[in-house]
């Protein structure tokens, strides 16, 4: 398979856009790059030509936290549907959470997911193994076999762990097997509500989840990571004080990294004022000061990465009173239009968003640096940043249409995604 991309701007290693005449891809790898001062090899005959005029070309995104819903929740999503959605979002690598049915706490489930992903062949799928058996927070999973079967790290998938002694032992056992732990920090006893605890929850009478439910857990987890020397990755931070704690831990040299869900960078709890269940997510979207602290943390490096925290749901899961609806946003296909919103508001430059979802995510997973250089595997996203369009539910390839952006006017659209030298998505 030979692909030629012409006349766009590529993201170079200095984090700058550089105009190019042609990127040629042969048998999965980038064979040649011709910048705008060089003439492409005319003898290259491509099977596919992608005109990237006015488009940006950058390494495919890496999404650290995606619910594929497979096996077990086929009404919400499948490996086939959700990896197609990932490709449509410009993603070429994703980590899938262990919250499946059965839970991914065994070699068999890990292998099943990997096999389904290979069949679909839309992106690289790196399963996260369950931190405890059945995600019950009680007993260690078989980390060695999970690793052997292909799990890249372990995750508690937003399930609380019963006590600190169990967390400590899990960290020690993970360190034994040199596995990273992806933990959603939650102190279960403070986590009874359905939205951020603040004046909005007080006004509308929904039970609030205080920031404390996260920040107390962050403090404990950092201490336990320090002692066990495991690589702790804190998933989906939502509170301002969590950011300061991670910053301080990093300054102390503790092996901790963190990510934030893209919707936490854009929305605040004010969105919940009309009981719109689309904004019911966990951790809850918090106040404006939290949102600004998360953005600041991304810029300072306290927060390393951005994730979609993709949670597809069938329509019925959201068609009920707020507190009874299921939490989560279907976000993987709309990462870049959301990045465009942040860029347009001067809150986060597009290049920093991309960096957080490429190089910095790769570092967390100890993957090769994603870059556009000759000889590298061709994992690329071709993004048109100017097209203005209105999102319809049926446009989404994900089974989950639970996005706050439905019927909204968006700017920027993924034109094509290339995964290991094949076109995994191309816009109509």
């Amino acid at each position: 398979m030979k692909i030629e991309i012409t006349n766009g701007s590529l993201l170079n290693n200095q984090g700058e856009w550089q105009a190019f005449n042609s990127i040629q891809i042969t048998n999965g790898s980038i064979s040649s790059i011709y910048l705008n001062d060089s003439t492409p090899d005319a003898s290259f005959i491509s099977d596919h030509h992608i005109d990237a005029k006015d488009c940006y070309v950058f390494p495919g995104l890496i999404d650290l936290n995606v619910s594929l819903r497979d096996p077990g929740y086929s009404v919400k999503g499948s490996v086939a549907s959700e990896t197609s959605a990932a490709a449509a979002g410009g993603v070429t690598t994703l980590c899938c959470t262990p919250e499946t049915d059965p839970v991914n706490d065994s070699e068999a489930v890990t292998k099943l997911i990997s096999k389904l992903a290979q069949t679909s062949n839309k992106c690289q799928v790196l399963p996260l193994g369950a931190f405890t058996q059945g995600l019950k927070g009680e007993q260690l999973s078989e980390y060695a076999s999970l690793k052997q079967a292909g799990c890249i790290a372990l995750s508690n998938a937003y399930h609380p762990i019963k006590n600190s002694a169990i967390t400590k032992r899990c960290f020690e056992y993970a360190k034994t097997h040199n596995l990273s732990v992806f933990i959603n920090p939650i102190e279960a006893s403070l986590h009874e509500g359905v939205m951020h605890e603040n004046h909005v929850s007080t006004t509308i009478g929904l039970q609030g989840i205080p920031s404390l439910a996260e920040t107390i857990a962050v403090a404990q987890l950092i201490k336990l990571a320090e002692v066990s020397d495991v690589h702790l990755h804190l998933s989906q931070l939502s509170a301002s004080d969590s950011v300061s704690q991670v910053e301080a831990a990093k300054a102390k040299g503790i092996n901790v990294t963190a990510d934030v869900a893209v919707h936490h960078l854009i929305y605040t709890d004010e969105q919940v004022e009309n009981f719109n269940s689309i904004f019911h997510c966990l951790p809850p979207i918090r106040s404006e000061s939290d949102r600004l602290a998360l953005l600041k943390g991304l810029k300072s490096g306290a927060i390393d990465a951005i994730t979609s925290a993709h949670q597809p749901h069938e329509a019925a899961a959201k068609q009920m009173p707020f507190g009874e609806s299921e939490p989560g946003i279907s976000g993987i296909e709309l990462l870049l239009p959301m990045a465009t919103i942040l860029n347009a508001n001067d809150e986060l430059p597009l290049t920093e968003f991309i960096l957080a979802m490429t190089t910095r995510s790769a570092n967390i997973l100890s993957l090769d640096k994603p870059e556009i250089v000759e000889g590298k595997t061709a994992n690329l996203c071709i993004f048109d940043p100017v097209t203005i369009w209105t999102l319809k539910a049926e446009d989404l390839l994900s089974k989950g249409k639970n996005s706050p952006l439905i019927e909204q006017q968006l700017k920027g659209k993924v034109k094509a995604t290339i995964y290991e030298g094949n076109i995994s998505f191309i816009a109509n």
Partner: protein
Amino acid sequence: MQSSLQLTESGRLKHFLTISGLSKALLTEILDTADSLIEVGERQIKKVPLLRGKTVVNLFFEASTRTRSTFELAAKRLSADVLNININTSATSKGESLSDMLRNLEAMASDMFVVRHAQSGAAHFIAESVTPGVAIVNAGDGWHAHPTQAMLDMLTIRQNKGQFEGLKVAIIGDILHSRVARSQIRALNTLEVDEVRVIAPNTLLPTQVESLGVTVFNDLEQGLNDIDVIIMLRLQKERMHGALLPSEQEYFQLYGLTQEKLKCAKPDAIVMHPGPINRGVEIESEVADGPQSVILDQVTNGIAIRMAVMSMAMSGQTETKNLLAESAS
């Protein structure tokens, strides 16, 4: 708050979901309408034809005797046909979804749903899902709102005090879990009373309660100083669990309204309670049955307020329907 959901284009009521987003003029109109309907209850034949031929469904997902009965009486006095449906929430969660149930009831040509539900926002959800022409009246949703209770309290205050300007009102008890308190605070502030106080221990106050427009007192005697209207809230027995309160005894000792404590308020202060009363927990019998108590007036006013709100929302829906028909033709 999304005011357009409960108002027609011309600003009239078409659902009654929350006090939030309603103007002082509209609240006053509700009170005036209720005033004019009070005499219906005193007639030999207690009926007016405002809702004749309409079907009102009382959809109660939470147990209630008093509120449901007053809604039923109100609808019957307006000449509507009434259907009472009591649903055990756990039964619905096992089977039919709320949306499906609503579609079925709509197919029976219902004109109005009076809804009580344990989830905050349930009435909003239903108002957003029903077809135009069907009115929703919120009879209490979670901790969010109980707007007819608040309005009957406002009517009782106006009857006794004549006006809202200059009044100091104290709400005492479990503000955290109270939809009644949230609606009362909103209504009192919209009607421009002088001051709304909440009196409770911190465990029964929601985060940033001041943002509702209240001043906070932990001490009952201090909080009652110079007060015109005292509103006691019912204390649920389950608040003795989960470390919210140590015991009923200590609560009564600190926050129970006794004749002695009542002396801290103005001599002509009125005492209100949404019921049912826990005598000896939040209020002493001598006070509940005493000369300053207007608790039974509240019950009588409840029927008039519900008649007012139901007839206003139904006429708002008729206006909307007519507009839709016009634009279709």
